[in-house]
């Protein structure tokens, strides 16, 4: 289909397939090309580390909690729902 499979991976291709690589969905041959390139490219090594660092940091973002009045109104709805059930 294309001749990419024959060539060494270029940096510009690596940055486009990095998510497939990290997700474990990169095809066998491309994974080998990825790893071969990575072994000899300092800039791409740094790029991969940056992506991994990003994913780690994103995982540490705190999930915002609901506004207290939203929780109150949901609890109100819950109690009305519960009471309507027991009233049946």
């Amino acid at each position, binding site marked *: 289909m294309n001749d990419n499979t024959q060539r060494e991976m*270029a940096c510009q291709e690596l940055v*486009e397939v990095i998510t497939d690589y990290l997700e474990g969905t990169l095809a066998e041959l491309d994974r080998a090309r990825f790893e071969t390139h990575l072994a000899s490219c300092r800039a791409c090594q740094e790029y991969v580390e940056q992506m991994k660092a990003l994913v780690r940091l994103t*995982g540490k973002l705190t999930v915002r909690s609901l506004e207290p009045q*939203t929780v109150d109104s949901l609890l109100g709805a819950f109690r009305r729902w519960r009471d309507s059930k027991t009233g049946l």
Partner: protein
Amino acid sequence: MTPVAQISSAEADLIDRLRGGDEAAFVCLVNAYSESLRRLALAFVPIEAVAEEVVQETWLAVLTGIARFEGRSSVKTWIFKILANRAKTRALREKRTINFSELDHPLERDEPAVNPARFLPASHPTWPGHWAGPLDTWSASAEDAVVGRETMDVLQRGLDRLPPAQRVVVALRDVQGWPSAEVCEVLHLSEANQRVLLHRGRSRLRGVLENYFKDNA
């Protein structure tokens, strides 16, 4: 074939408690999922107030629907599907459908992970497509132990500003830690399209951090 998703005993217990009117079980669910529900709603309708309403409607639908919940998917997936359906309906009504486009057709538009100007041209005799210059090295500064509040705020703002479809996928996958299969099911995405959105969102966020560390080196 076995069913796609079988609910765990912990989930079955949670459902029993909800059906029995256990307030703590409801609060636990609300606290666990409301923020991701809000993010998902925003991906469809980019109006905070409407997203909040859709989340509230979703919880009410959960309460009225819990008696009929059959456990064919996990409780979480079920709740998020309710949200997605309602948010879509609402978005159509608000005529803000533009935000669906990237969810439905992520490949219609090309979006390079890195500005092409950062690479040597394809015509370069020895290094086509290689980095034109060295990359700033900041990955070590992004180690958890040394990352301060300011960096996390920059990252949060970057996430908030992602195009909606990318934002919701990154939020569900990387902030909430969902497996890709669940994200695909709730958003009706193929695995491939989910990865495209994740890739674009992460690539943009990497650029945000790169700029931040460059300015604060």
